[in-house]
């Protein structure tokens, strides 16, 4: 009994988790306009998607934003993690606390606070405001990923490097960076996905000059059932699955 009970339960929950996703994927190939009836196999919604110029533009915008946000947050996040790990400085607790607050606070709070800031400094809402916001909410996740990697790291290595006359910068570049590389990749991928998925923060800090995918999807979904959304959702699913497998593969390989 003690074997099949947990298994049945696990299976049940997984079925519930995956039914909506499977429905979405299946219906993205549905020829019928209706969201409920099966009208034969078709790729027409994928075609409609790629013929929609605004949609394609939003896709590119989103990809570029996610790419740059992930990159910037990985760079800053890695440096933050290194600083927290290696240096003793005043206000370290405050720094830690701020990162924790960003991670824990509801997105909507972050969103309005950033909107207030951007209005105050007169920053035009568009790519730059989106980038600043996305980097900010990705940052703590990168820091945590990298810190986790650093915590299992042999402290004598950097000491040895320093004893051999390496400067702090050189030591970081030649010793620490290679060690935290897998964490950087994982953090980057996490940031990329978070940015690509974000609706709440983007709703507040975006302008019409830079339309991104989640907001486009939001306005489509609010209008009603649209088969194009199924197609788009399926594409996003395949894409993130690919990214996820990639990140797991990199992490696993680095452990060996």
């Amino acid at each position, binding site marked *: 009994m003690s074997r099949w009970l*947990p298994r049945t339960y696990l299976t049940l929950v997984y079925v519930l988790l995956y039914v909506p996703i499977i429905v979405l994927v299946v219906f993205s190939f549905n020829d019928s306009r209706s969201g*409920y009836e099966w009208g034969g196999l078709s790729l027409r919604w994928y075609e409609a998607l790629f013929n929609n110029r605004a949609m394609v533009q939003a896709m590119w915008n989103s990809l570029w934003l996610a790419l740059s946000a992930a990159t910037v947050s990985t760079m800053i996040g890695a440096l933050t993690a290194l600083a927290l790990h290696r240096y003793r400085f005043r206000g370290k607790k405050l720094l830690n606390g701020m990162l924790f607050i960003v991670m824990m606070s509801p997105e909507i709070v972050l969103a309005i606070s950033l909107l207030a800031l951007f209005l105050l400094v007169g920053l035009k809402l568009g790519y730059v405001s989106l980038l600043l916001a996305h980097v900010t909410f990705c940052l703590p996740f990168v820091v945590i990923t990298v810190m986790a990697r650093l915590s299992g790291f042999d402290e004598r290595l950097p000491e040895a490097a320093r004893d051999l006359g390496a400067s702090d910068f050189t030591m970081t570049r030649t010793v620490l960076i290679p060690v935290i590389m897998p964490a950087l990749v994982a953090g980057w991928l996490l940031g990329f996905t978070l940015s690509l998925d974000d609706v709440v923060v983007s709703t507040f800090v975006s302008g019409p000059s830079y339309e991104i995918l989640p907001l486009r999807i939001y306005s489509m979904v609010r209008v009603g059932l649209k088969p194009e959304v199924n197609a788009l*959702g399926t594409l*996003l699913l395949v894409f993130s699955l690919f990214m996820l497998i990639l990140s797991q593969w990199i992490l696993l390989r680095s452990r060996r």
Partner: protein
Amino acid sequence: MSSVTQQPFRTAVLVLVWGWLLFLVLTPNLLVVGASVMTRDPGSFLSLPLNLDAYRQLMNPLYLDVFLHSLYMAAMTTLICLLIGYPFAWALTKVGKQRQMLLIFLLIVPFWTNSLVRTYALKLLLATNGLLNNALMSLGIIEEPLRMLYTEGAVIVGLVYLLLPFMILPLYAVFDDLREDLLRASHDLGAGRLATFVHVIVPLTLPGVLAGVMLVLLPAMGLFFVPDILGGSRNLLVGNVIKNQFLDARNWPFGAAASIVLTLAMAFLMFAHRLSKRRIGEDGV
């Protein structure tokens, strides 16, 4: 430690990190606090004088009602996540290590998929002409389609669906750490299954429970797109109120005050979490 002047790299790193966090985390949060004590202005966004009107408005029965209803939906979401997630996390630790990795992976996959798209997929299932109703009707379980979409229940289902992994992962972490020898010791000392559960398992997994509650309860009050899509623009969350105040009604002080209440709720939960962790630490486990 060598002095700052000898370490330009260290200085540069610290300046960058501090600069970013002060400018994009601390300042904005202070701005929100500031905005919440200012006065609504129809022409511009905010104006003087400073006062606590926004907070007084929060105490207005109308908004109190919205808050309580939102809190109720978020609490229900959290409770359901916990009821599903607790046995789930425990069951996860009962399967082989290799398979555990795969199952965790499968748990994270939906989380990596666009949350709007997943909410939308739920709409396909819950609609009156939707697949669930069709299936139930063709099985002869129901005669008339159930009206599930645009109800409080639909909002809660949506929130549970989006947030369940956030409950499971911290719970899995604590169950994974749960040492078999402790359970065996409890058993050897004559404790029954129930006693072991109440006196050993529950206290030891409490930090995981609180972490999960924290990760579910707060987002469950803020995810405004869920009521928009599944709640028919009714059954509003605090997130909807905040969004409306900023983007429709243009009452910034009130929106800011509402968001500060959310932040305080977060602080409270974080405090409880720390406390529970410390207690276990002091118990020497």
